């Protein structure tokens, strides 16, 4: 069973629907004991980092997340879930989970392309250039695009943990991989077939990856 962590950060049913479509048994819950028994953990979320961290600390799920990552359970972060695994976020100057060393930065306000100011948030479909050797990102078409909605982006302390890169006025890290943890800034559950392929790969992944 795939456990989807519910910490009151947005609507998590779309991730569950995508897994149901893939015929992967899953459960959306905030109960750490049920999640303890899950083979895989998905940690989604939309909203603001400050409120998300308050909910995680208030419910004690922060400690459980660190524990699941430490135990070697395959964990997938999505969007805000990806951002709060780092040390700190520039959004609300938030201290985050510190599972992966690094920061979450705000897109500069004056990003430009072809002489025109780019809009923030980065909303819509964009390409991700993945590390090809990671099982979760295997078999994706070269020009596959993914659906993004965000104003902040991950900046891991060690570029070796970046498993995917995207261009939006700057080149930013849009996928992270560190041991049994993968985390993506885009929404695989809203990214058509390539997104479903990422979710399916994750559900079949044992959690090992030699960096």
């Amino acid at each position, binding site marked *: 069973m795939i456990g989807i962590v519910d910490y009151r950060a947005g609507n998590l049913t779309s991730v569950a629907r995508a897994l149901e479509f893939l015929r992967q048994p899953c459960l959306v819950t905030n109960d750490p004991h049920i999640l303890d028994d899950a083979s895989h953990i998905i940690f989604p979320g939309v909203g603001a980092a400050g409120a998300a961290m308050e909910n995680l600390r208030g419910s004690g799920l922060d400690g459980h997340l660190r524990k699941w990552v430490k135990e070697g359970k395959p964990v997938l972060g999505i969007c805000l879930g990806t951002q709060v695994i780092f040390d700190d976020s520039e959004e609300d100057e938030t201290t985050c989970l510190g599972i992966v060393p690094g920061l979450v930065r705000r897109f500069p306000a004056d990003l430009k392309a072809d002489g025109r100011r780019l809009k923030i*948030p980065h909303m819509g479909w964009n390409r991700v250039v993945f590390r090809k050797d990671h099982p979760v990102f295997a078999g994706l078409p070269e020009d596959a695009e993914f659906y993004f909605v965000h104003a902040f982006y991950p900046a891991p302390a060690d570029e070796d943990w970046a498993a995917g890169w995207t261009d939006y006025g700057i080149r930013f890290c849009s996928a992270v991989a560190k041991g049994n943890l993968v985390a993506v800034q885009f929404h695989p559950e809203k990214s058509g077939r*390539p997104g479903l392929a990422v979710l399916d790969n994750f559900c079949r992944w044992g959690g090992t990856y030699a960096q």
Partner: protein
Amino acid sequence: MLSKRIIPCLDVRAGKLTKGVKFQGNIDIGDPVEAARAYYEQGADEIVFYDITASAEGRSIMIDVVRRVAETIFIPFSVGGGIRTVEDMRRVILAGAEKVSVNTEAVLNPAVIAEGARAFGSQCIVLGMDVKKCLNNAEIPSGYEMVIHGGRTQTGRDALAWAIEAERLGAGEICLNSIDADGTQDGYEIELTRLISSHVHIPVIASGGAGKPEHLLDVLTRGQADAALIASMVHYRTYTISEIKRFLQDRGVKTRLHW
């Protein structure tokens, strides 16, 4: 870089499409879920639903449609029409829509934008604008007036001022419909689209007037739109979404070609 989005718009009344969608072999698809699936397969980047039902009973039918769409397609979709309160938004979002759009309701009660953005995040809140060209005057310096109730009621409000105000209140995106161009299939209102898009920092979806791929090219380049809404030109199978995308891509407009 971001791809320009191509977004088919489906009007739903009491759970059925008001214009049939012709698909392979000219089969008429009256079911919004099947039409959504067809466009998802063709490469739509997003889908917009307008619920034009008036009754409460019709609304429950729409929630069921939203739930079935969410189980069928895995791209974002928005739902608009008759959404007045945060509670209305919550029902639609919990049923699986990525975004809700507010139009007349937001003009009459702008606070609903801020309340929705606070509850669900700005990325969920689309401001639908119906706009009509007029003579510019002290109240309407841009020469574009907001109209509501599907274009039947003039408001005396300046469209540009309203767009800027709605962004400040927390709208995450604007779906900009020109009442003058709507239904003509003669092309989008380029001046209006460029005016609004260049004065706000949120994405603008151009709407009204699409009849051929050249119109999309024009509004996505000169019009500075981030996305283009289409209806009849794909509903009646004059073009497929993939043909339109190929046309744009060949002329230097980046679109999503793999799905």
